[in-house]
């Protein structure tokens, strides 16, 4: 008997900054719409476990889309004529997320994003808070420098391998190997220069250190960061959360890609947050069972020695 995931994928045409973007998204579930933002250089597959989790889908309509240039969403048709390298800006990122939500006619969705998708929650909370009912900012902080670097897009360096390996250490060593390497694979499949271009937003164009205090607090923000995240350390998240009104900060034993590197651990830490969101928004929950079952996501799956002294130092040849 064949087995299918319950996920359905579609394309929607999104208008943003005068261009039309054929945008791929996947969804499953019913109830409160929850839009999920992938990390830099990858795509919505990072949410495949949450899309399939009946405990989530019975109360949330989970939607994960691929940003333009990512996954199955194509770049603008004239990309080959661009006179500058690809750079994601805060303005475009915010406006595209809003345009996507409007294209799907979503009303006050929950927004969950990780890494750059977490950081942009701060920009959206500042500029578009009335559009959302809650923010879940995974691995997010108000400023994350040090990633907009040339080796990530260089003709003498294999982009897929360097990009994927540069983020491998962001994952916790005890996260399941198969899920860590699946995450590596997502990164290795990114388009040339797209990871680096996203990091223009992440490390250069978004600096909310002097703006976080201005977030009104009308919409709750939940910050969750793994202890192995060396790009956005627990301390960086905690410092940010202290400045943001109506926020909570949760530090857990994981890494930078919680949804894909260790979905079982992520379910443990996100479930209390989702319960809070549900209790604050009871009329929009799904029509099915209304309690988290607590079911867990399945665990993943000498040469001879010749030594000779040379000029007074020890040398070993193999």
């Amino acid at each position, binding site marked *: 008997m064949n087995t299918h995931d319950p996920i359905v994928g579609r394309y929607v045409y999104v208008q943003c900054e005068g261009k039309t973007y054929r945008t791929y998204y996947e969804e499953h579930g019913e109830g409160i719409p929850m839009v999920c933002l992938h990390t830099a250089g990858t795509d919505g597959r990072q949410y495949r476990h949450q899309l399939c989790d009946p405990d989530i889908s019975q109360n949330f309509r989970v939607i994960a889309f691929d940003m333009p240039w990512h996954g199955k969403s194509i770049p603008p048709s004239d990309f080959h004529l661009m006179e500058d390298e690809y750079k994601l800006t805060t303005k475009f990122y915010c406006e595209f997320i809003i345009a996507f939500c409007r294209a799907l006619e979503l009303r006050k969705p929950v927004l969950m994003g990780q890494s750059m998708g977490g950081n942009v929650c701060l920009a959206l909370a500042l500029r578009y808070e009335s559009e959302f009912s809650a923010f879940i900012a995974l691995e997010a902080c108000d400023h994350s420098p040090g990633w907009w670097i040339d080796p990530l897009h*260089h003709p003498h360096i294999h982009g897929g391998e360097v990009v994927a*390996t540069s983020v491998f*250490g962001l994952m916790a060593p005890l996260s399941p190997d198969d899920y860590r390497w699946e995450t590596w694979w997502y990164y290795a499949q990114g388009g040339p220069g797209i990871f680096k271009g996203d990091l223009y937003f992440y490390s250069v164009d978004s600096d909310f250190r002097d703006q976080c205090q201005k977030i009104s607090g009308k919409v709750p923000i939940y910050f969750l960061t793994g202890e192995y995240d060396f790009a956005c350390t627990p301390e960086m998240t905690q410092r940010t959360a202290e400045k943001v009104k109506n926020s909570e900060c949760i530090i857990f034993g994981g890494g930078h890609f919680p949804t894909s590197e260790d979905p079982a651990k992520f379910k443990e830490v996100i479930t209390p947050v989702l319960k809070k969101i549900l209790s604050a928004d009871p009329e929009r929950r799904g029509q099915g069972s209304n309690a988290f079952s607590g079911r867990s996501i399945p665990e993943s799956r000498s040469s001879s020695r010749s030594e000779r002294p040379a000029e007074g130092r020890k040398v*070993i040849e193999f």
Partner: protein
Amino acid sequence: MSRYGSRSSFDLEWIERWARKVNDDRILPVIGRFFTSKFVLGFDDTEYLVDVRAGKIQKIAQGLTPNDMGVEFWLKAPSSAWSKFSMEVPPPMFNDIWAMAHPLHKQLIIEGNSLPFWQNLRALTRMLSLMRQV
């Protein structure tokens, strides 16, 4: 090496044991097929030359001499940082060479020509992770 133990020194004998782990590895010849380079590992003030061809270590040497031409890059860190890096389960911020080298953390310094470092990052990352099995 115990999971939470500490190491008093990274001597040549230890480096040799690591090099033999590298040369016994069956994945490195695949992902490191084009990894041919000479680089230096620095532990405090002690330097070890590592001569790699096609993902296998051909030679290690303590210290550099005028005859050591063609060294491309240096990876230098305090031995306290390497001790954490080489634990079976390394602690946060010390579990990866780019994590240690990232401008936020600066535990590891990359000197010389960083191009071959980035070109071979995948193989190099695996090669150095085998320190956890020494």
